[in-house]
């Protein structure tokens, strides 16, 4: 899968019109309705904010190098971890795979010219940009110190940081998310090419469909929660105020009703990427297609039933805690189904180890650890001890970073030739993947131990006996940072100096590989008619050429 030589009868990408060079003005980009250009706009903005969130992570890890609180004040530390969380959750993890890879690929994968509502797609991006501008303003004018979870009554009454403005930023970003999900659902229902039945769809499409269901159903609830917090701060409508007979825990119920399914918004699209990578790099059809497809839907639905597992020690009734604990065990089942099926797909496959596949392997291992530790947390007896400790922090970073981010990086490398028309340098890419894997584990595995031995989260000082583990964690974070910076550099480098890629350098299945690399503005010259099943690698490899027919 190294650089491919272009035969003489194929013009190099730079002299044919594709979506990238079809109009060079700023206006042609900022007023585009082409889903591929919008995906690139998202790519740029999301990457900027990823590094900003990472900057705050760096400040956290620097502070935690020493047991004393010596780098910053306690109040500042509260603001730093809050901004890290808010930026990473609302402005990176939620949008990244759907808005970058989903926007780019879904119309291509289903043989459509664009999403159902291209102008709403552009609006989604602008809403995202307004959200990040607002949150940037918040950061520059003092930040927020409540934690990204902005629990009442601290957020509604006692803090004097910019809750309303930060809430507005998240609210607007939420609408960006809702419109993306709405667009995907309508597109997938209404615009599939002839012959592309539901059970011939790539699993990446199924995953984004399930994600979109969550976006539609869940996001409005956090939106109204933000409104109620704002209204309580601004107009003294004390909905969560215990002095009026209100319940601060109601805030948590409404908040987590969205925020738990939100983590499935984050992971499902990445799982969709993994399905694409595993099949391509083991040259096999996925094992149990129906099970993997329906497991995405199951995760979306069951994910709405478990939210109060974030509230076990907050003051909910014991009986409710038992119900939610029981339901939380169920939500692990469809995720496990995916991991089993990916493993079974690998079995007796013809496995190759290009960079995307390295990220896929990393995902399977790290997501499994993250997911299993979620079950530890679902167990009431264990949760009482490790909740609000670094055990939780490690758990969610394993699934968010070891899961979502590795899936995203694998997908970016896999589809990079499609998006840019260039191939990335494989050697540097493999090195980066290795650094990410090693750095990640060094950062976050010690945190499981730290949490287990009792270090609370969101603390800026800790007893000296925890220092060794914290130093290991910070060292790991430094390695991880290098692992993230390198792809930035070599992917940008490849835009100008990378080998030109042909339409299907991986000989992968999927309609997107039948479009040019990069595709033309309208994707396909003629609407394809699909007569083959998904992941027909046996046919592709038997025919000896790329493409799916």
């Amino acid at each position, binding site marked *: 899968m190294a650089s491919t030589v272009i035969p003489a009868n194929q013009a190099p990408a730079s002299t*044919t*019109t594709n979506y990238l060079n079809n109009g060079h003005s700023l206006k042609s980009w900022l007023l585009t309705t082409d889903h591929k250009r919008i995906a690139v706009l998202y790519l740029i903005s999301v990457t900027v904010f990823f590094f900003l969130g990472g900057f705050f992570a760096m400040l956290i890890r620097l502070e935690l190098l020493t047991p004393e609180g010596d780098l910053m004040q306690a109040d500042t530390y509260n603001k730093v971890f809050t901004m890290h969380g808010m930026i990473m959750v609302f402005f990176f993890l939620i949008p990244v795979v759907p808005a970058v890879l989903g926007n780019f690929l879904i119309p291509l994968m289903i043989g*459509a*010219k*664009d*999403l*159902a*509502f*291209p102008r*709403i797609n552009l609006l989604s991006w602008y809403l995202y940009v307004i959200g990040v501008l607002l949150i940037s303003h918040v950061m520059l004018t003092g930040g927020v110190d409540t934690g990204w979870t902005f629990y009442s009554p601290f957020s509604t009454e006692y803090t004097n940081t910019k809750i309303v403005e930060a809430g507005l930023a998240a609210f607007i970003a939420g609408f960006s998310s*809702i419109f993306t*999900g*709405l*667009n995907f*659902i*309508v*597109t997938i*229902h*209404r*615009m599939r090419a002839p012959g592309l039945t539901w059970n011939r769809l790539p699993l990446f499409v199924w995953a984004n469909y399930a994600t979109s269901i969550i976006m*539609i*159903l*869940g*996001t*409005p*609830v956090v*939106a*109204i*929660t933000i*409104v*109620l917090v704002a*209204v309580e701060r601004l*107009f*003294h*409508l*004390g*909905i969560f*105020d215990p*002095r*009026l*007979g*209100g*319940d601060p825990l*109601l805030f948590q*119920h*409404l908040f987590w*009703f969205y925020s738990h399914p939100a983590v499935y918004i984050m992971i499902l699209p990445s799982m969709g990427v993994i399905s694409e990578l595993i099949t391509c790099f083991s040259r096999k059809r996925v094992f149990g297609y129906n099970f993997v497809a329906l497991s995405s839907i199951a995760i979306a639905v069951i994910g709405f039933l478990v939210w109060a597992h974030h509230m076990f020690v907050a003051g909910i009734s014991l009986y409710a805690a038992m119900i939610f604990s029981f339901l939380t065990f169920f939500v692990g089942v469809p995720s496990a189904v995916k991991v089993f099926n990916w493993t079974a797909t690998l079995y007796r496959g013809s496995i190759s180890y290009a960079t995307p596949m390295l990220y896929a392997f990393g995902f399977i291992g790290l997501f499994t650890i993250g997911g299993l530790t979620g079950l530890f947390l679902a167990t009431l007896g264990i949760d009482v001890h490790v909740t609000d400790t670094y055990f939780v922090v490690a758990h969610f970073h394993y699934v968010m970073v070891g899961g979502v981010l590795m899936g995203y990086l694998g997908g970016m490398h896999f589809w990079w030739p499609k998006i840019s028309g260039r191939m990335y340098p494989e050697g540097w890419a493999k090195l980066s993947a290795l650094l990410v894997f090693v750095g990640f584990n060094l950062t976050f595995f010690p945190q499981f131990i730290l949490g287990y031995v009792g270090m609370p989260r969101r603390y800026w000082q800790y007893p000296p006996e925890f220092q060794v583990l914290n130093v290991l964690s910070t060292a790991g974070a430094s390695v991880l940072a290098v692992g993230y910076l390198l792809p930035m550099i070599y992917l940008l480098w490849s835009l100008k100096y990378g080998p030109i890629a042909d339409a299907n350098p991986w000989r992968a299945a999927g309609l997107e590989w039948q479009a040019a690399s990069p595709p*033309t*503005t*309208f994707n396909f*010259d003629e*609407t394809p008619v699909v007569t083959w099943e998904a992941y027909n690698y046996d046919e592709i490899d038997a025919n000896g050429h790329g493409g799916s027919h």
Partner: protein
Amino acid sequence: MSDNQAIAVEHEAHNPALLHHFSSEQQQKNAASLGMWLFLVTEIMFFGGMFCAYLIYRVQHFNAFAAASQQLSIKLGAFNTAVLIVSSVTVVLAVKAAEAGKRKLLVSYLVVTVLLGMTFLVVKGFEYREKFEKHHVPGPTFNFTDTFDDNGKQIPVNPKEAELFFSIYFAMTGMHALHMIIGCGLFSVLAVFAWKGHYTPGYYTPIENAGLYWHLVDIIWIYLFPLLYLISRHS
């Protein structure tokens, strides 16, 4: 380039309202309709959070909620409910007029709908003013101990819990009113476009979809009215 030109040629025979990325008008219409329904689901969940808050607090503080609810005017609430129901009928009639290509009738029904919506908002304004005068607006000016029942007696409930009821009342009716204002604005714009002849029997999707939005706002009020105004009126 040649592929884009070929696509342009394909489309020249179609209704000008057909957008290029759809393969047929029916596909475009179905897509718009599904998109609107999905947006309405988000509205259900959006208001749903407030209904959840209402329900929990009503169960926990029933007496205060009942007493506070009795301070709302059933007459005005019922009148407003009737206004919205009639406005939903006019919306249905507007869609029928659009379907039949009757431009002036369409515009008339849209204008009547907007007027009914504004009637609702004016009545709501009177209600809010009355609440303000009786010190039932939550916050530093709230006072329930100076509120008396029909027999002139003080109402024996925790005034703080009554304030909670009014917090929910203002939050829910305020959000509903905001949606009404948006709906009135939307239909006003559509009335102007309809007057200019933008809608034909072959294309009146915006009227239909705006109608769906209006009906949902009506449905939300259908639930708000008994839950806020009719908690307990038989003591």
